[in-house]
């Protein structure tokens, strides 16, 4: 994985020093809250419902064991012994004291981590496929371009005060696991007829109160032009994005209002202008330097079939279920990708204790080349595990309550922190996810239901990605009481769609029964082997509407 050079380290160290001074001046009263608020947000410090919250950047979701151990240490020393992995592949601590934040940042800097650009109207953490470097159909490791964008966008002077926050995601495979079409910019790595690698560009996707699917504005941007092309997009947005209305400030509103064709025309015009005045070219030697950090690890030559694995699957039904849902195909014979569910039955989606972080760090060090990934679906991934080690890894995970066999199934839900933690939320998300998880805990039933993504948000800002859940749940406040609105048919993959609102909202007491009714309706309607989302696409919303509201 990428290692800081002297410039990266110096930049992070200087920021720690700068923010330490700002915190000291705030605590002594030299800075007012109004003056300080912008500064703390630039360093990932929010004021939430019960305390401050610190958001730590995990670039494109990749962590070394050493970094994860440091996060475990910070959780223990300065927080309450746990952290929360987010849909931006980042980590949040819910209880840090402001006076401790400078020490936390120093600890983070010691393992090449920081909180820069995890808030504010700038380019946020670039996200990508958690299977990067391991997926079978990958054209190029998306972490290379993600790292290049990270370096380019860090403290970019022109793009530090955009009309609104800006999120970029990259996918290196045709199967989109990075939700690129619901990002401000989505980058799909593609290959042209001459076998050259380039980038298909989507612009203006996003969730929040106005969900939009990104529009394609380029079929192929050559490799060396990528940064110049991104610069052109950002420049058009910086010029024409609305600064007068926070709800209309994202690039998706601009693209929606002027249309994809006009956006393309403006970006192309700006791109041509940039090229005239000396475009930002990506030199091959710099690309090669960064590529070297993401070279394939030292795989062993192994037979694809593992007798150890086959025996263990037959002997241990729990393991067999886990292999079925949590293990994915790897590009190398004899290797597999392991997904670690952070969704234990009845647990909080994305929460991970310091002890669990230490355990995962040890397992990653021993069995997956010392690194791991955070997924935007709030799980963890070990990208390169030998098939013959899978049972040992499963047992080690199980000892720390990390072997829930539910990845991609109905209890593998995304949920934002909601009103249990968040100052913006209108309703709680986590307890709804927990009760759904408990209702559908039976593993055989989960496998029978098959792939089904339920995403819950506690407010219209949609941090829980409810618009793109196959079933989406949005918490709303009606006169101080929590209600839950349901959408159906959303998806965040290569067939991205925004879900349709099924009807009037449900009370907290009704919502889990409503989800069960939806699932029962699906089971009674599906064709052999048909997933929930495919059934929905075939039959539409009416059967679900009927079964949900017929008796109301």
């Amino acid at each position, binding site marked *: 994985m990428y290692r800081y050079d002297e410039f990266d380290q110096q930049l992070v160290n200087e920021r720690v020093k700068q923010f330490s001074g700002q915190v000291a001046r*705030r*605590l*002594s*009263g030299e800075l007012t*809250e109004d003056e300080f608020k912008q500064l703390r947000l630039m360093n990932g410090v929010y*004021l*939430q*419902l*019960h*305390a*401050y919250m610190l958001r730590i950047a995990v670039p494109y979701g990749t962590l070394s064991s050493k970094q994860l151990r440091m996060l475990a240490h910070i959780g223990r020393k300065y927080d*309450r012994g746990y952290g929360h992995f987010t849909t931006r592949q980042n980590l949040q601590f819910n*209880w*840090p*004291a*402001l*006076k401790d934040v400078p020490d936390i940042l120093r600890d983070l800097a010691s393992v090449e981590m920081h909180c820069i650009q995890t808030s504010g109207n700038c380019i946020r953490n670039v996200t990508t496929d958690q299977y990067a470097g391991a997926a079978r159909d990958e054209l190029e490791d998306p972490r290379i371009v993600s790292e290049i964008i990270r370096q380019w966008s860090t403290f970019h002077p022109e793009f530090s005060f955009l009309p609104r926050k800006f999120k970029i995601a990259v996918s290196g495979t045709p199967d989109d696991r990075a939700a690129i079409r619901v990002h401000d910019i989505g980058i799909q790595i593609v290959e042209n007829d001459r076998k050259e690698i380039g980038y298909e560009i989507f612009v203006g996707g996003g969730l929040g109160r106005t969900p939009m699917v990104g529009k394609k504005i380029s079929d192929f941007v050559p490799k060396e032009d990528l940064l110049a092309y991104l610069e052109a997009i950002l420049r058009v947005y910086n010029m024409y994005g609305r600064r007068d209305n926070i709800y209309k400030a994202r690039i998706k509103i601009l693209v929606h209002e002027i249309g994809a064709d006009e956006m393309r025309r403006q970006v192309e015009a700006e791109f041509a202008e940039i090229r005239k005045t000396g475009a930002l070219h990506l030199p091959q030697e710099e690309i090669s330097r960064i590529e070297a950090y993401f070279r394939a690890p030292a795989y062993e030559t192994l037979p694809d079939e593992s007798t150890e694995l086959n025996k263990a699957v037959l002997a241990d039904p729990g393991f067999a279920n886990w292999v079925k849902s949590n293990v994915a195909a790897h590009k190398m014979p004899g290797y597999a990708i392991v997904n670690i569910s952070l969704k234990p039955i009845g647990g*909080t989606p994305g929460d991970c204790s310091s002890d669990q972080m230490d355990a995962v760090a040890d397992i990653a060090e021993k069995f997956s080349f010392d690194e791991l990934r955070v997924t935007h679906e709030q799980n963890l991934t070990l990208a390169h595990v030998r098939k013959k080690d899978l049972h040992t890894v499963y047992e080690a995970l199980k000892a720390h309550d990390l072997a829930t066999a539910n990845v991609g199934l109905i209890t593998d839900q995304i949920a934002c922190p909601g*009103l*249990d*933690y968040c100052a*913006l*939320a209108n*309703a*709680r998300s*986590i*307890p709804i996810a*927990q009760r759904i998880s408990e209702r559908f805990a039976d593993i055989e039933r989960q496998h029978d239901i098959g792939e089904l993504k339920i995403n819950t948000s506690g407010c219209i800002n949609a941090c829980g990605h409810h618009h793109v859940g196959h079933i989406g749940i949005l918490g709303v*406040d009606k006169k*101080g*009481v*929590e209600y839950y609105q349901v959408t159906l048919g959303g998806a965040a993959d290569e067939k991205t769609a925004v879900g349709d609102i099924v009807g009037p909202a449900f009370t907290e007491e009704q919502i889990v029964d409503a989800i069960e009714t939806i699932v029962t309706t699906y089971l009674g309607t599906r064709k052999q082997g048909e997933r929930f989302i495919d059934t929905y696409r075939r039959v539409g919303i009416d059967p679900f509407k009927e079964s949900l509201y017929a008796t109301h």
Partner: protein
Amino acid sequence: MAQHTRKGAQFQAVTANRLNDGIVVYLTAGGRWSESLQEAAVAEGKEAAEALLARAEPAVADNSIVEPYLFEVARDEGGIRAASVREVIRQAGPTVRLDLGKQAELPDVHR
């Protein structure tokens, strides 16, 4: 700032977060900031509520608290109760982690 109280609320109290650690606090009748809602001063009527909020200003000025605001409460035999789900959670802690927050530390936290 978002509205955390409703127009015409009869009883209101003042809450804020402590600057140095962010912990939720309530303004008491004696002008202190307590971690317990049960020690909060309760104002009846709009004018008394605004006067109570004005009493938060010195603590903002001396940098001990941030973002003070009024919120609706009710009194019953159990003591002072926050009216909204949001403020109930804020004075108690996450409903999904009963081992954390004031509910784990203080007596008389209501759910």
